């Protein structure tokens, strides 16, 4: 943001140091996400001095919790989950502005009480506050919360002014196209789109943001970033964990809904989009939507663009682990996939003919998320003798987690009198260069929403475009039950049927 457009008292401060007076209201205040991520995020923003002096935190939940007890729960959450130790002076200032309102999500009167609570804070403070609602609840109560925010007048609070109300919504943004459209319709009935921040925490990760910088701030990459030089792209979001105690939830979800449709598609959009005209939120999101719309419809059925599987019993980290169907809460004939792989084609000038391979699974060999760009092999026969020259395809990989960074595979001469080659890996690791104590994704995203920057959030049409692509796949899978469901050993890199998506000579990476 150029200083000329800002209040003079914000000149010389980065935009993240200019958050306005804000009250953050968390729906689902006693939930797991609140304890693990949201409270620690708020606290760490306080440690970094990024919260305004007039910052307030209000928890909202069905369970009646006295203010003091909520503050104790919050402090305990910081002690357990924060990346930094609890500093008494920082926490005491936040705690003094922390309170709790109990109420049902479908109870209009409770929302009226919440509105009165916020007004009382403003009155005591002597100034108006921006209200940032954070909906961190199961999706089943999204609609009543949104409707009551509208009915109570909270959604429209200060609309038309810079400190208008805003809302952060956690995924899932629907479970198919129809439900996503319905959710968006509910959202838009009470909020304007510019007030809405749909969160995908992947977008808050440093490496994901760095992807834009690497692509558009380095002139060596962009000229190569097209079908003339790139052979294929693989995007992997692999988890070591199984479904654990979340079997009941996962049975309704699966890898495609849980990971592919959101996280991997966001990574794909940032990898494949055209350069935006600016870093303005709408300019970036316009380009993301454009590239998502250029993806060709997926072919389902045998020989198509999709593969799915469930993990079978196997060994991970030297220990035997159960198969998916033996996990607690899983139906013995479950047709929910724990692994999905997709082959995408983008029908535009830049990417025509370049396959994008996406995969995500549970109980894979290791936890890793990465984007790998594999370049075409050099033409000619200069180094064609396979006996002497071990040439690898140049591959640029962005490791999103863990060990955030990027690496580039180059071919190099092995020292010696004879010319022989060997691939070498050039590594850049964030932790080595910048230290690992970087802000967590939620810190960045909560602060971005506070300052009204939607660049790293998902717009309604992005979510719908993604669902439009995947809903036919879900419908097809539903229609065929377990037909075509493969298995893979827990601790492996995935099922055999995913290999069929790759053209001859290509293989899934084992990052």
């Amino acid at each position, binding site marked *: 943001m150029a200083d000329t457009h800002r*209040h003079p008292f914000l000149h010389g*401060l980065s935009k993240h140091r200019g958050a*306005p007076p804000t009250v953050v209201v968390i729906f689902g205040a006693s939930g797991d996400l609140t304890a693990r991520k949201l409270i620690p995020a708020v606290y760490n923003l306080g440690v970094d001095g990024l919260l305004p002096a007039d910052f307030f935190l209000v928890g909202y939940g069905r369970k009646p919790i006295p203010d003091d007890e909520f503050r104790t729960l919050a402090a305990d959450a910081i002690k357990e989950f924060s990346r930094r130790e609890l500093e008494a*002076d920082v926490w005491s*200032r936040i705690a003094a502005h922390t309170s709790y309102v109990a109420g049902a999500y479908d109870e209009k009167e409770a929302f009226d009480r919440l509105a009165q609570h916020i007004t009382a804070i403003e009155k005591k403070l*002597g100034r108006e506050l921006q209200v940032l609602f954070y909906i961190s609840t199961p999706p089943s109560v999204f609609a009543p919360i949104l409707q009551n925010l509208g009915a109570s007048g909270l959604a429209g609070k200060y609309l038309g002014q810079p400190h208008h109300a805003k809302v952060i919504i956690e995924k899932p943004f629907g479970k198919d196209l129809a439900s996503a459209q319905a959710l968006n319709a509910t959202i838009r009935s009470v909020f304007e789109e510019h007030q809405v921040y749909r969160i995908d925490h992947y977008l808050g990760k440093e490496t994901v943001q760095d992807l834009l910088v690497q692509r558009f701030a380095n002139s060596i990459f962009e000229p190569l970033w097209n079908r003339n030089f790139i052979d294929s792209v693989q995007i992997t979001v692999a988890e070591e964990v199984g479904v654990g105690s979340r079997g009941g939830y996962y049975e309704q979800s699966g890898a495609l809904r849980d990971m592919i449709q959101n996280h991997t598609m966001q990574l794909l959009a940032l990898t494949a989009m055209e350069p935006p005209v600016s870093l303005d939120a709408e300019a970036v999101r316009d380009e993301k939507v454009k590239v998502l719309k250029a993806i060709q419809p997926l072919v389902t059925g045998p020989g198509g663009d999709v593969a799915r599987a469930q993990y079978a019993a196997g060994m991970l980290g030297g220990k035997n682990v159960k198969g998916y169907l033996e996990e607690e809460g899983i139906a013995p004939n479950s047709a929910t996939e724990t692994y999905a792989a997709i082959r995408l084609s983008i029908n535009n000038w830049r990417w025509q003919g370049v396959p994008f391979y996406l995969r995500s699974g549970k109980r894979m060999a290791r936890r890793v998320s990465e984007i790998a760009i594999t370049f075409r092999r050099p033409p000619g026969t200069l180094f064609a003798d396979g006996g002497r020259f071990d040439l690898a395809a140049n591959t640029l990989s962005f490791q999103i987690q863990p060990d955030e960074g990027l690496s580039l595979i180059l071919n190099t001469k092995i020292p010696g009198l004879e010319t022989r080659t060997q691939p070498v890996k050039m590594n850049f690791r964030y932790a*080595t*260069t910048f230290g*690992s104590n970087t802000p967590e994704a939620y810190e960045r995203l909560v602060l971005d929403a506070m300052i009204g920057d939607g660049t790293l959030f998902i717009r309604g049409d992005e979510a719908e475009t993604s669902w439009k692509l995947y809903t036919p796949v879900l419908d097809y899978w539903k229609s065929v039950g377990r037909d075509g469901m493969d298995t893979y050993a827990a601790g492996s890199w995935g099922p055999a049927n995913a290999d069929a998506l790759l053209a001859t000579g290509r293989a899934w990476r084992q990052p």
Partner: protein
Amino acid sequence: MPAIFNALPGIEVPVSGIARGLADMWLDAAARGSAAPGADDVTATQVNFVLHLGSRCTPEDALRQFETTVRFSRRYPSRVVVLCPRFSEVDAPDMRAKVYGECFLGKSKSDKRCVEFVLLSYPMAARPYLESQVSTCLSADLPLYYWAHGFSTSSRLADYRYLLSRARRVLIDSSVSPDDALTYPWPNPNSLRDLVYSRLLPVRQTVGQFLARYEMPRLTEGLKAVRVAHGPELAAEGRVLLAWLRRRLSDCGPTGGCLDWKLEAGEARHLAIELSYATSDKFFRWHGDLAAKHATLEADFGHGKTELAAGASLLSPEAALSEAMFF
């Protein structure tokens, strides 16, 4: 002034053998069982950083700045060159060098950052050769940052044109610099940053965030007096804070009616700001106790009185360096 060079840590090596000395330093460390960096770690250099210790520096002061640079480079791995000029001509005419290295181990396996320092002690007679020597110690192609500390006159520092003109930022601390240091016609005046201003970031942010929520005319209409009070050891901070308020308020609107811009003595480790207006019911006050890390904000701009507690601190020296360098 070899006393400074002697006071700083490191292993003395021949100037012609600095590169080898750095390599041997890690080998020695490995042989003793200390953490030694792999090649990747050593090359994780982000910036070139030159710390220039001027004639006003005492050995104790030099050691403090050296340690600040070490802490800074743990966060931002740097190739650091420390310049220790010797002003007495009776010293030996040759340059001397030391190398110093340190690996910082973080929480994760990959969080290991190693830094290398080269310390150069030189008589003024060797000054014409210094720039070439410094260039061989820096990492090619990476940006250069230059911190001149404790120099006696600006004109004397201006002789270091190579560093002053090539550096992306030139850092000085106006609390310990000559009076004309901020106004001297440096080769690239836009690159100059005052560490006092950087240290004040938390104060500027708290006050700036608070006042930015008010319409600009409201902050200047009827403004009669702006006062900054400071503890005796915070005179430079008080001066810079008052200048900042003057610039910011002037950008908000006409402040011609405000004839009273005053610096006042206050309690030790305290800073305070007061804006007074034509009517007594309109005011702004911020009072920071830096020792207790606590501040109070009080204001009334016509919507009723607002009272808030806030944190109060100055940036640590190493954080002030990074703020001045990167933001």
